[in-house]
């Protein structure tokens, strides 16, 4: 249940973020027991660099508080879609938060929106869409890969999000989005290798009056093909963009100041050595390597008069 709304206390079975440091955080389930690989019921123990944790002990604890591990402290946090994007088990390439943010805003999603997504992939984007459209909206998400569909459906259930999402196995490039969704959607999102094949089915799904579409593609050739396909289908206001985020390492630095004026006069050689001066300053350093490309976002409007 832990992805739905804001919770104070950890309830049995919920997913919990265990946060040690900025690079060490994990997601685990607050359950006393779990099934071993052999299918035997065993105690649910989570191994961390600071020692092991009996996950059942977390039940009833308050989110945002500190817990003691053998070799240090950890914090327990309520999961968010952003944490999930960083921690989910990858079944596919996924979309990350800077692109996700732009997608949500440019599709103009709100707590009443009906959204169609394909493919579901690893459900990274889906979690963020659901946060934005609940409680009155709904996400219909499609993938033609049966196992991915099953895993995603199960994750939504464990995360307490099932009521806001319908996951279906379907090849949207050959079969479209189904009769039931015709005239239902406010927005459509595509992350497919050949989105232009699915595009032909998109114009039927929008509510009367139209809606917005976004397509995410890593390659520029895909974007070109998609843009001409969509223009032919009557889409308007094509906008293609890319968003890249860089994070800074903020550091306090100290720089010694050389006193060279002293050299102009012949006396007091000693003071030159002793009087070291420093300049202290704060600076932010961009990382040596940073994301240089994720994908192109193409946004369009589909409009027809009622």
């Amino acid at each position: 249940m832990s992805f739905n709304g804001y919770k104070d206390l950890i309830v049995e079975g919920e997913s919990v973020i265990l946060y040690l440091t900025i690079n060490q955080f994990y997601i685990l389930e607050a359950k006393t027991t779990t099934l071993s690989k052999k299918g035997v019921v065993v105690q649910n123990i989570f191994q961390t660099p600071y020692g092991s944790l009996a996950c059942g002990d977390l039940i009833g604890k308050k989110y945002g508080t500190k817990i003691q591990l053998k070799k240090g402290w950890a914090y327990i946090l309520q999961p968010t879609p952003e944490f999930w994007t960083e921690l989910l088990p990858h079944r596919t390439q996924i979309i990350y938060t800077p692109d996700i943010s732009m997608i949500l805003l440019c599709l103009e999603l709100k707590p009443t929106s009906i959204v169609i997504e394909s493919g579901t992939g690893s459900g990274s984007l889906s979690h963020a869409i659901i946060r934005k459209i609940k409680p009155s909206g709904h996400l219909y998400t499609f993938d033609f890969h049966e196992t991915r569909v099953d895993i995603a459906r199960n994750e939504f259930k464990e995360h307490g999000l099932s009521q806001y999402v319908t996951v279906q196995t379907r090849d949207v490039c050959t079969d479209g989005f189904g009769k039931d969704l015709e005239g239902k959607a406010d927005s459509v999102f595509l992350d497919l290798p050949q989105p232009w094949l699915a595009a032909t089915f998109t114009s039927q799904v929008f509510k009367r009056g139209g809606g917005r579409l976004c397509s995410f593609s890593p390659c520029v050739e895909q974007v070109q093909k998609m843009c001409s396909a969509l223009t032919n289908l009557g889409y308007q206001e094509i906008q293609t963009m890319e968003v890249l985020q860089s994070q800074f390492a903020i550091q306090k630095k100290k720089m010694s100041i050389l006193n060279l004026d002293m050299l102009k006069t012949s006396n007091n050689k000693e003071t030159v050595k002793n009087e070291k001066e420093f300049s202290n300053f704060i600076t932010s350093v961009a990382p040596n390597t940073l994301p240089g490309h994720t994908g192109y976002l193409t946004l369009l409007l589909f409009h027809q008069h009622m």
Partner: protein
Amino acid sequence: MEETIKVGDYIIVQRQNYTKLHKLKGHGTILLGSFNIEMDNCIGERYFDTFQIKNVPNSKRNYTLEKIENLSLVSSNLNVEESGNDNRNIEADDNNQTMSSEEINKMKDEELSSNNIVEKLISNSKTFSTKTGFSQEKYIKKKSKKYCEYIQIRRPSIRLMAQMFYRQDPAKILGIRIDDLSQILTYSNIQSEGTHVLYDSGTSGLMSAALMETIGPNTTGKLIHMHPGNECQKVAFLAMEYPEEQRKRCINVNLYSVLRQFYQGNPGEGDSIEPNEQSSNAENQVTEEPDAKRRKVERPNWQVDNEEACELLKKGVHSIVITAKEHPVNIVDALEPFLLPSRNLVVFSTFKEPLEELYFHLKTKLNYLAVKLSTNFMRNYQVLPERTHPEVNMTNGGYLLTGIKIEQ
């Protein structure tokens, strides 16, 4: 959503890439570039309709709208024949156009559609046919921009307004670019429920509008919108025309006044005048006339709002967003005690340095983890067959600091 354009609606008027927010009045006009346009003819028509700007007979500067029924006339591409292989024979001089500006103006007065004007310009240009296809297209774009006289009427959305304000003048929204806004909304983890705090020192109402859209209609979420002036900026908020029940869940309070109320309780008798610590920016303000008679019996509105906000603050809040002109450290110090553990703080600034200071402040004095400072690179692309490339101009965004509150 109602499709018909009505008097009283906030509309976005779009002319080529330029957009302007406008409140539609009966017999009102709007100034678009050099056009002073009477808007009455769009009333009763539908959103997304396209109108031609037509000169009012016998008046130089006044224009009126005429609905375009056949859109294909507008968007039909001009047919261009003959293009040169390269630009080697073209001299950069202004005499390539054989029509005089008087002739061009006369043509405009004769109500030719802009495509016709551009076609005339082309046939009277000595060099057009020697230009390459690429430069021909550029020429057409440039000229149709100058002479394009069509507008489209749109309903405001957060996306359209964010782009509009940024294009008009980033200062109107403290330099918050659309990608910055999008990330403020995700990193704050704001949802349709809970209580949220915004301190905004002036984004023309865009921030409160965007957060209230995320909170949504018929939900339980509330926003305490703190501002530094007597009245908050709210054009963008009003333009979204949220239903009353949703509007009411945005509680607008003065930062000083609500904090004083929180720590010192209700102001005493005869003391009930809105504190005036900082005079607000005069732009975009709707001042409420204080009703002298009612004031004596009932508490003034601002005080009711303060009390409601204080009640919510006592219970703790589920996100804090700060988009401030002022230095963020003291603002964070004043507001963050209300933030519940495991909840997110997001601070935007056009400058990096104040956020660097805030970073160390959060790390050393306060209880936050996952504190991050980031910025974005955003690029738009022209996508056309054989002519796909990044757009020639780029913009700058600002900086975001995010962190998660913990309890020691």
